[in-house]
């Protein structure tokens, strides 16, 4: 993580794969502006796994979509930078280079060349994330033909090979099936096959296992880890489930109301959380080693209405460490408090 003289996060250092700075994505509506993402910053390294956690509605999915340039209208990125390291063109004639995805036209050729090929997305709803009237094969072939110079037949071979890799049995038959002929777990496997078919350097997984039963969930996570080891892609894993984070992530970014309040390696998040929100979040979930009578404490208060975000630090109305005159006046910025540990809180300024 790079720091400026005051200890705040600055532009990305050379080695990051994705470096998001002060990203703001707003949805103008008749009732007011929904500030879904309001100043998010985090870094993601090649081959690493960054877990993103936070309560429902804190802007995790919108962050993911902003990176891909597929925010629903009328939402759009109003500010911020998304530096992404583009792959070197074959043969290495041109070195890999950073592009700011936030400056690209969302439907322009460069953004589309990145989307699906270098950054891929899988998400929650396995029932409806495939078109119900096109065969699985048709939908996977499509992305292969779009980004690789392969004809229909070669693309189909690749599709079958990918399905086999993700553990779909008799893929030659499955390619001709519709998504409703597949079980939830198989659909998510097919989804992963599609996402990885162009060998992306970043896979964004937005709650990929939330809708699956526990056994299938474990299998899918194991598959993702295995494929990550084989292909070396980075994973941005969005989830509510801290158990999944503990199992998968190397680093964790904790989000609250459209902002990252803390980012640190997974061990530090679990054993030395610094932000009062992270601490409260950890107290609210059961731990394996917790004593039988240890009580869970829900986070006090409730998530504010999206049109009506608190001034200053967005967490101050619920914060046990609230400092009147400071937290409700100014917004803290993300600052390094350890080697790789950044917190956005006045307690540490």
């Amino acid at each position, binding site marked *: 993580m790079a720091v400026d003289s005051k200890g705040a996060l600055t532009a990305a250092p050379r080695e990051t794969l994705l470096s998001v700075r002060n990203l703001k994505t707003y949805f103008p509506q008749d009732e007011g502006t929904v500030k879904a993402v309001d100043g998010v910053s985090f870094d993601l390294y090649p081959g690493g796994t960054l877990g993103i956690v936070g309560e429902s509605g804190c802007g995790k999915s919108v962050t993911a979509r902003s990176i891909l340039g597929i925010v629903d209208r009328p939402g759009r990125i109003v500010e911020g930078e998304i530096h992404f390291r583009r792959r070197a063109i074959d043969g290495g004639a041109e070195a890999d280079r950073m592009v700011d995805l936030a400056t690209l036209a969302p439907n322009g050729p460069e953004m589309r060349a990145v989307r699906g090929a270098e950054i891929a997305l899988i998400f929650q709803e396995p029932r409806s994330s495939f078109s*119900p009237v096109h065969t699985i094969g048709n939908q996977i072939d499509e992305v292969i033909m779009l980004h690789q110079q392969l004809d229909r037949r070669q693309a189909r071979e690749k599709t079958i090979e990918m399905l086999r890799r993700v553990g779909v049995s008799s893929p030659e038959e499955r390619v001709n099936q519709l998504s409703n002929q597949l079980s939830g777990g198989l659909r998510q496997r097919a989804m992963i096959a599609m996402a990885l078919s162009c060998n992306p350097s970043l896979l964004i997984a937005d709650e990929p296992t939330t809708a699956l039963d526990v056994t299938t969930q474990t299998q899918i996570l194991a598959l993702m880890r295995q494929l990550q080891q084989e292909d070396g892609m980075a994973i941005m894993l969005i989830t509510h489930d801290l158990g999944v984070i503990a199992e998968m992530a190397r680093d964790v970014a904790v989000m609250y109301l459209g902002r990252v309040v803390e980012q640190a390696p997974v061990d530090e998040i679990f054993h030395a959380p610094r932000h009062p929100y992270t601490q409260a979040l950890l107290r609210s979930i059961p731990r394996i080693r917790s004593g039988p009578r240890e009580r869970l404490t829900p986070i006090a208060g409730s998530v504010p209405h999206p049109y009506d975000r608190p001034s200053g630090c967005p967490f101050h109305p619920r914060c046990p460490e609230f400092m009147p005159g400071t937290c409700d006046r100014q917004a803290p910025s993300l600052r390094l408090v350890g080697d790789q540990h950044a917190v956005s809180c006045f307690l540490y300024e």
Partner: protein
Amino acid sequence: MLAYIGRRALLAVFTVWAISVLAFVIIQLPPGDYVTSYIAQMAASGSVVSEEEADNLRIQYGLGRPIYVQYYKWVKLFAEGNFGMSMEWKRPVTEVIGDRLWLTMVVAVSALLLTWVLALPIGIYSAVRQYSLGDYAATFVGFIGLAVPNFLLALVLLYLGFTLFNANTGGLFSVELQDAPWSMAKAWDLLKHLPIPALILGLAGTAQQVRIMRANLLDELRKPYVVTARSKGLTEGRVILKYPVRLALNPFASTIGYTLPYIVSGSIIVSLVLGLPTVGPLLLRALIAQDMFLAGTIVLLLGVMTVIGTLVSDILLVWIDPRIRLEDS
């Protein structure tokens, strides 16, 4: 797939049978049997039907025998292309209907095609650019299209044609070609006359279909598979046309079945106003004059055409939505 189409076809045959019973009932409705009224009609106009001819007719139609025999004989004659005599015109029904039946279909089908050609892109645009100026404009024009009776629109267009261009916009043919035998020139003439009646007849349907398409597509655009398609890096146009539009087409295509008869029956007044040689006005007159062979025949033929239209839309549906195929096997 074949089983599905087979079942649909079977259903179509059954429907045709039901319509034929209905047409038969219509023919049987007036008091007295057909030959008696035929003789009376002929007598009223001064010509005499010989005993022999009357007996022949009675045998041909099985009069005096059980009703199902009569029905059977009538169907048999019908299948042979003998639709009976028109009382009012005193000519075989086949001659009276003449070109009108298929001209009706030509007008109806072109109205339907025009509806689709207009409604599809406008509906897609309205959904994709919801609440844009264009969407509001389409909605506004659409409601006008729904609210204005089409015969009024026909009158307005006739009037404008006369005053502005001094042209007769009515009819399906130019006066000099009206009774000419079929030729390339006449077919071309028909093509030139078609747009106006097609537009008038299709406008209300277009407005309705725009609303249907817009609503369907708005539903589909929110589905996760659209996000998936976008995340692949496809162009926005490709995303929309390949995925949500394809699904939105489903309920849209299933409306063909009922749009056709709607256009045909809706065409009666417009045909009168525009002087179109379709079966609509003929059916109206036949019903008023209790010219039952003519009325029954028209009802039956229109029914058959509608059933064919529905069958076509069913087959189209299988193509659009392969899930139907699956549910079947």
